[in-house]
Each structure stands twice: as structure tokens, then as C-alpha cells.
């Protein structure tokens, strides 16, 4: 009797760690993977205002890709994503290299470059929305200062509005990319750099031939973060342009929200969420796979 | 049956067996050292005795009781880790007290015990410091102090000296030996350092490739290594292992060793008298540097001293001794000469071989023949 009680206690002791982990695993299983499955199912259903379980096959996807708004949203995502990632990387790398020149007050400058990252995209959106507003912002200021021919109305211009989203987003995250690259630069073996200097490499050659190629991991992680932020970006667009003028700055994230919750086209909304997930997974899964495999 | 029985114990991870069936009986009060290169299975065996790793097969008994399923805390063991594993957030006092607290020892008793152990290890003045403020040797003492509070049946040491510098290591080695003599507790001690093994132990298990190669007293292991691995691993400089030929010459068993110029030197080898079936065959002659010395430094009582002139390749003075290298059987052989030897590189010197201390190995099985 005593033996079986103590062996039961031993069994519990062996199970305890997994028991402690299990609530989290259950939550993730239901609320991440279960919900993904549920939304996937809805994307094949005739759901409109409320979830409904009539199977309609691929028709939501067909409708989705025939919608002009979705077309605009995808185009915008492509323009925004490419410019956002490219500019952030170039600017971030440049700032990191500039800051790596044994700058006095480096910590202070770094703090200034990085602080926007602590802000909500809504705050960023509000600040840039009014700053770029031709009626009161930059344009009005220039007029007031006497440059009356100055014109900067991108935020009100259907063709240019998406670029204002790029401007605000770059402002917010380029400091973070700078920090990533700076950490990468600091991780490079100083003796190797000294050796290259002894070999007679100029500063330019040093960076181009030796330093930047070694920043590959930093590039990769910056790319992954930026790509997935670009695809998820919702708050900034809402606060800055609210998808407008018209539908000029619609992106998949705002599209999904409005089709699901305001236009009562839940099936199409679910299908658009599904496309977003697949796009992100295409970037993330290979990355996670290689990261975790190396760790083993 | 011993006090600590390791009975046919094996360990495998998946399909990989890291410890083959191992049988060791440790008597109460013994100081057993498990020694071997990294990956030999010594730490795995220690961790299984501690209960930190599961036994794949076989049985471990402490004081006659099977402990395979007993959790570490209930085995009445204490362990000193390589990194000392002191809790960085607690003071020295807290570190020593923690185990007693976990076992429900009342506070006054804990205090008394801490004072006693601290006194024994001379760390009383350190009790209120954090581990981060201690030197390596002090941490080592605290780790031992923590283990000492338990009156354990068995003390386990996992390479406790390997993080110390050379000088301190020698000092702490002596202290551990003193402690064992004073307390008389059974100790199992893992190290990769053969000198530690020889100086500390009452018995040594030399391990390699998941097997115990030889289990015996330090003397047995040093004088009569069971195979070429043990011969090469134990002792520094290592035993010379020289390809040789066994032959009977004028009715006496001799070992023939090739010199660099192609000639052969014959050394009478009385220990090989029983090995007639090996006569005329290749063997490996094992001879320790101190059995290959200048005639003046040789053991005059040896029953089998053979003197030969050999051309010297290298002379390395090392303070108390001088090491002299010659080519024998196609290998470099090192002899230990007295400090003020006249031997000079490029010139012949007279060697005295104490063949009573030489051993012979089978070159194929690597096992000792004589």
C-alpha cells in the first residue's frame, strides 16, 4: 500500500513538468492552431454576418480575387512592403555604420533614433497625419514661410497616399533596423578588422568586402521582422489614412477587417486572412525551421 | 556485497549505449576514483549513482537497498559539482543551509551544523558573502561544506578540481584526502586527471569507451596495467610502449628492440619466462621512464637490471629530473635520468633498464601478457 502510494507520487513527480506546460500548450493549440483551422473552414463557407457552415468550396477565394479593392490592397502591400523593407535596411545600415565610427554621445544618439519604436502606430499615425496634411502641416508651413509654390499633398492624393504610409512606417522602425545592424557590427571580430587594415584595405573596402558580408544574419532577422510587420500592418494605415482617400491605401489587413466586421462578408474576410497567413508562413516557417535545427 | 553496489549497470540514449554493463562493488569508507578521457562514461555513471540520470539496465544499491527509483534527495548522498553549482542569489550560509532546510532540519540545528562545517573548512569568515564574491578555492570549500552537512552515505565528486589553477588544485587535493581520512565516508570521485586518481584513491576504475578497463588499487594499476590503454593513460610522462620481439637467447627470455641504425639491442626479460608460445613473435614492451635511467640512479636491488649504451636524441632538463629521449623499436622512448646527468644529445649514454618492472602486451588485443 505504502509502496503504491509512493510510486503514484513518483509518477506525479515525473509528470509534473509536462502538467505545468500543458495549459499553455492547450491554449496555443486551441487559440492559435484551432482558430486557424476554424478560419480556414469559414473561408470555404457561406458565412456572411455570422459564421455559417454551408460549404461553398473555393468561391470565396474566387470572389476575393475578382474584387478591385483586394487587387488594390495586394498592390499596395507589394509597393509598401518592398519600399518599406528596402528603405529601412538601407537607412538602418547607413546609420549603423555612421554610429560605428567611435562617435561621442553614441548612446544618446541611438536613443533618439530608436525611440519611435516605443510608440504606438496610432500615435505615429496621428503625428504624421497632421504633419503631412496640406491644410495645416508641412505645405502650410512652407507657404507661411514664403515658399508659396511648395506643394506636398501626397496624403490627399490617390496615387501618392501609399507612400506617406511608407514614410511614417520607415520613421517608426528604421531605428530598430539600425540597432540590429549595430549589434551585428559589434559582433565582428575586431582582430580581423585590424588584420584587414594591416593588409591595406581602405575603410570603404573594409565595409564592402569584409564587414557587410558578415552582417548576413542581421539582414536576415531584420528582413523577417520587417516582412511580417508589413503584412500585419493595420494600425498605422487606420490612423494615418484610414484606407483612403477612397480605397487608395487599402491593405490586406484593413480589407480583412472591413469585409468581416462592417460589410458582413465574413467568408471573404476569412479567405483574405488565410492569404495573409500563408504569405507570412512562407517567410517565417523556413526561417524558424533553420533556426531551431541549428540550435539542436 | 559492497556498501555501494553497481550491479550490471548500463546506460543508453536511444540506440546508443554510452555505458556498457558495469560491475563495481565499493566497500564502506573506500575512496573510488573513476578516471578516463571525456566521453568514457564516468560522469554518466556518477550521475546514475546520484539519481540525476535514469539507469537503463541493472541495479544500483546503497547499503543493500535498491535505489534505481529513489529520487536524488532521498538517496542520502551528497554531491560536489565541477562548477560548484553554488546558488548565486544566496549567501554562503544560505547555500550550506538550503539542503537541510529542504529536509526539514529545524533552524537551531541548522545553525549549529553550519558553524561546525564552516569551522572544519575554515570558511567561517565567508558565511555572509555571496558566491560571486569568492575566489575559486573558496567556492570549492563552500561546495564541499554544503555536501558535508548531510552526513551522507556516499559522497560524489564530479571533477571538483578542474576549474582551479594548478597550485590550488594540489592544495585542495590534499585537503580532500585529509577530509576523507578524518570522516571516513565512502567517496566516488570522477576526474580525467590521472594524478588525482593515483594520489587520492584507495581504488581506481580506469574507464574508456563505456567500459571499465581496469579496477584496482593505484599500485596495481600503475605497476601492472591491464592493457595498453591503461598503461598509456596512467602515469606522466606516459609508459613507453615499444614494438619489440620476444626471443630466447642462451636460455634466457629477452626482448629485442630495434635501434635507429637498424641494429637490435637485447634486454633479458625474466617476467616473460612463461611466454614461450610468444617466442619469436612481436610484442609491445611497456616500460616506465623511471625504469629506464642512468646506472647511478637505478634501483640496485632490482633482480633484472640491464645496462646498454644508446645514442641520445634529445635531453630535456626538468629541474629534479632530466628526460632523455632515444629511439627504440621505431618509437621515441623517454628515460628519466638524475638532474645532473652527463648525457648529451647526439652522443651515446649508458641506460640501465629495470626489466623487473617492464611489462609485455599483445599488439593485437592490447592486453597485458606479462
Amino acid at each position: 500500500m505504502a509502496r503504491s502510494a509512493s510510486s503514484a507520487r513518483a509518477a506525479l513527480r515525473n509528470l509534473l513538468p509536462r502538467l505545468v506546460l500543458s495549459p499553455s500548450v492547450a491554449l496555443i493549440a486551441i487559440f492559435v492552431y484551432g482558430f486557424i483551422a476554424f478560419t480556414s473552414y469559414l473561408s470555404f463557407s457561406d458565412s456572411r454576418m455570422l459564421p455559417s457552415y454551408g460549404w461553398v468550396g473555393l468561391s470565396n477565394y474566387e470572389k476575393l480575387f475578382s474584387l478591385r479593392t483586394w487587387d488594390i490592397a495586394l498592390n499596395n502591400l507589394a509597393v509598401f512592403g518592398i519600399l518599406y523593407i528596402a528603405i529601412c535596411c538601407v537607412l538602418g545600415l547607413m546609420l549603423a555604420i555612421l554610429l560605428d565610427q567611435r562617435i561621442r554621445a553614441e548612446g544618446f544618439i541611438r536613443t533618439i533614433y530608436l525611440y519611435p519604436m516605443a510608440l504606438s502606430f496610432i500615435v505615429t499615425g496621428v503625428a504624421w497625419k497632421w504633419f503631412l496634411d496640406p491644410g495645416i502641416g508641412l505645405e502650410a508651413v512652407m507657404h507661411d514661410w514664403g515658399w508659396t509654390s511648395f506643394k506636398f499633398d501626397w496624403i490627399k492624393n490617390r496615387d501618392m497616399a501609399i507612400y506617406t504610409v511608407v514614410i511614417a512606417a520607415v520613421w517608426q522602425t528604421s531605428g530598430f533596423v539600425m540597432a540590429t545592424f549595430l549589434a551585428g557590427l559589434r559582433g565582428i571580430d575586431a582582430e580581423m578588422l585590424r588584420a584587414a587594415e594591416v593588409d591595406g584595405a581602405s575603410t570603404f573596402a573594409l565595409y564592402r568586402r569584409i564587414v557587410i558580408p558578415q552582417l548576413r544574419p542581421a539582414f536576415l532577422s531584420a528582413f523577417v521582422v520587417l516582412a511580417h510587420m508589413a503584412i500585419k500592418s493595420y494600425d498605422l494605415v487606420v490612423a494615418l489614412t484610414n484606407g483612403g482617400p477612397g480605397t487608395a491605401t487599402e491593405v490586406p489587413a484593413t480589407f480583412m477587417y472591413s469585409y468581416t466586421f462592417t460589410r458582413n462578408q465574413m467568408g471573404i474576410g476569412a479567405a483574405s486572412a488565410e492569404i495573409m497567413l500563408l504569405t507570412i508562413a512562407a517567410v517565417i516557417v523556413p526561417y524558424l525551421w533553420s533556426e531551431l535545427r541549428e540550435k539542436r | 556485497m559492497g556498501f555501494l553496489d553497481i550491479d550490471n549497470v548500463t546506460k543508453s540514449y536511444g540506440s546508443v549505449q554510452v555505458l556498457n554493463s558495469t560491475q563495481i562493488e565499493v566497500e564502506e569508507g573506500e575512496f573510488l576514483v573513476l578516471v578516463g578521457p571525456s566521453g568514457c562514461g564516468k560522469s554518466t555513471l556518477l550521475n546514475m549513482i546520484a539519481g540525476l540520470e535514469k539507469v537503463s539496465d541493472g541495479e544500483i544499491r546503497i547499503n543493500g537497498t535498491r535505489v534505481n527509483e529513489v529520487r536524488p534527495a532521498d538517496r542520502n548522498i551528497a554531491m560536489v559539482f565541477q562548477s560548484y553549482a553554488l546558488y548565486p542569489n544566496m549567501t554562503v550560509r544560505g547555500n550550506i543551509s538550503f539542503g537541510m532546510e529542504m529536509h526539514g532540519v529545524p533552524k537551531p540545528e541548522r545553525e549549529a551544523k553550519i558553524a561546525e562545517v564552516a569551522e572544519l573548512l575554515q570558511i567561517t569568515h565567508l558565511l555572509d558573502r555571496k558566491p560571486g564574491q569568492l575566489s575559486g578555492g573558496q567556492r570549492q570549500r563552500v561546495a564541499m561544506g554544503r555536501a558535508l552537512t548531510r552526513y551522507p552515505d556516499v559522497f560524489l565528486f564530479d571533477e571538483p578540481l578542474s576549474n582551479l589553477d594548478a597550485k590550488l588544485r594540489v592544495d585542495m587535493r590534499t585537503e580532500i584526502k585529509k577530509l576523507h581520512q578524518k570522516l571516513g565516508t565512502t567517496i566516488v570521485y570522477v576526474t580525467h586527471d590521472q594524478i588525482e586518481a593515483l594520489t587520492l584513491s584507495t581504488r581506481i576504475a580506469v574507464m574508456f569507451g563505456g567500459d571499465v578497463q581496469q579496477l584496482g588499487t593505484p599500485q596495481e594499476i600503475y605497476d601492472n596495467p591491464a592493457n595498453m590503454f591503461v598503461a598509456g593513460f596512467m602515469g606522466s610522462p606516459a609508459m613507453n610502449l615499444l614494438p619489440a620481439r620476444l626471443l630466447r637467447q642462451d636460455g634466457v627470455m629477452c626482448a629485442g628492440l630495434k635501434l635507429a641504425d637498424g641494429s637490435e639491442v637485447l634486454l633479458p626479460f625474466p617476467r616473460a619466462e612463461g611466454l614461450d608460445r610468444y617466442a619469436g613473435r612481436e610484442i609491445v614492451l611497456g616500460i616506465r621512464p623511471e625504469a629506464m635511467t642512468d646506472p647511478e640512479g637505478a634501483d640496485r636491488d632490482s633482480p633484472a637490471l640491464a645496462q646498454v649504451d644508446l645514442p641520445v636524441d634529445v635531453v630535456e632538463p626538468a629541474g629534479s629530473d632530466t628526460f632523455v629521449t632515444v629511439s627504440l623499436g621505431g618509437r621515441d622512448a623517454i628515460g628519466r635520468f638524475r638532474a645532473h646527468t652527463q648525457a648529451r644529445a647526439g652522443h651515446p649514454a649508458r641506460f640501465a633498464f629495470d626489466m623487473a618492472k617492464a611489462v609485455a602486451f599483445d599488439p593485437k588485443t592490447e592486453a597485458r601478457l606479462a
Partner: protein
Amino acid sequence: MSIPLSFGRISLYLLLGLFCIYYLLPLYVMVANSLKPLDEITSGGMMALPSDWTLAPWRSAWSEAQVGVEATGLRPYFTNSLVMVVPAVMITTLMGALNGYVLTKWRFRGDTLIFGLILFGCFIPFQIVLIPMARTLGLLGLSGTVPGLVFVHVIYGISFSTLYFRNYYAAFPTELVRAAEIDGAGFFTIFRRILLPNSGPIAVVCVIWLFTNIWNDFLFGASFSDFDSQPMTVALNNLVQSSTGVKEYNVHFAGAIMAALPTLFVYVVAGRFFVRGLMTGSVKG
């Protein structure tokens, strides 16, 4: 080593200074314009310092402006955000610490796979869970409530907190855990007495990361809150986007600063940990 000031060095500093202006300009615009009367802004004086300093926009944003149905200012929503953030951060951090502890110190077959599956939760676009989550909150009776938001943030924060603690504890010496086991400490005692007291830095990193993320969240707030349970970001957006009446830019800027202050404050006092969190959060695994 001091470097002589050459032409190159001077232009380097000039360039760095220019970028400082670029990053600080929006903050300057927000602060300066939150302290001036509306007509100074509408007459094209956005870049100028206030000529008539006033705290009225701040007062208005805090307690008078019309955000929802009533003219309450942002104050109740600020409170909502606080009431949401504090428990969500505490619960998530604790769960992440326990998960990291199990995943590194009590390893079992398949633990890396489980970690990978948990980790993927850091990356999903939350749009994919909006519909079922809205239904689930309804079923649990939590829709439109602050506890409902806490629930959502805890679930989708676990992935991050687990990542932080797992990576931290992976570098924590396992021998300490083994020593404590031999000393007789059990699973929770080891966690409480050995791991937790040595988790200060990573706990700060994790708390800051979660605090910033949850405070700044907009999507969940907009999807799952009612008028009276809106967090600060949603209320700010409503204030700014409301199409009725005159646009009080100065009030908007004051409100934006209020929404930014808590995270900015954390960033300024604990920037080191904030950056570390960002880095770990980006270099996953």
C-alpha cells in the same frame, strides 16, 4: 584615443545631427502644438513654438473632449488600458517563466517541437483569429469587457514570454538545478528559490516588451471592446477620426502624447532592456 576633428568627422556629426532632427521632428510637432491654441496651428504655424502657451488642449484631451457618446476625455480609456495591461503582463510573464523552466530544465522527448509550435504564435497575423475569438469571447461572456482583452493578450503573449525565458534559462547552469534536486528541493521549490531569484534581467525585458506591445495594441482593442472598455489607442483614434465638429489638432496632439507617455517613459528609464527585448524578439529561437 581621441580622433582629430577633420572635415570628414565634422560632416559625419552633421549627418548624424540631421537624422536626430528627422527622428525628433514629429515629437516636437506633437509637443509644441499641444501647447498652443488651435488658431495658431490653422494659420500655418505648426513649426513655430507657441506664442500663447496654454495647457487647455491637455485638459480637454484628458477630461473634456468628446470621445464616445459622452464628453469624458481620454481619462477613462487611459484607466482601461492600465487595468488591462497590468494583469495581462503579470500572468503572461509568469506563464512564460514556467514554460521556459520546463522546456530547458525538465526536457522531454519532443520538447523542441512543442517550443517550435508555441513560437509560431509570435508570427501569425492576428486577423486569422479575429472571427473565432469574437465568438469565443461571446460564449465565455467576456465580449466587450476589459477581462476579455486581458484574456486575449495573455494567450497571444505566451509565445513571446516563453521565447524570452526559454532562451534565458537555456544559458542558466543546469548543475544548479541538479544540486538543488540533491538538496531535496522539488519542482516548484527549485523554480521559486533558485530560478526566479536569478531571473531579474529577463523578467524586466519580458515585462517591458509585453507592456509596450499590449499598451500599443490597436487591433484587439478595436475588435473586442465596447465603448466603455476601449483601450487608449482605440479611444485616441476615435478622437482623431471623429468627423463631427471642428478638428482640434492641439487636442489630438495632447491625446497622442498621453497615449505615448507610458511606453516612452519605460523606454527612457529602461532603454537598455527595451533594446534587448527587441533583439531577442527579432532573433527568434
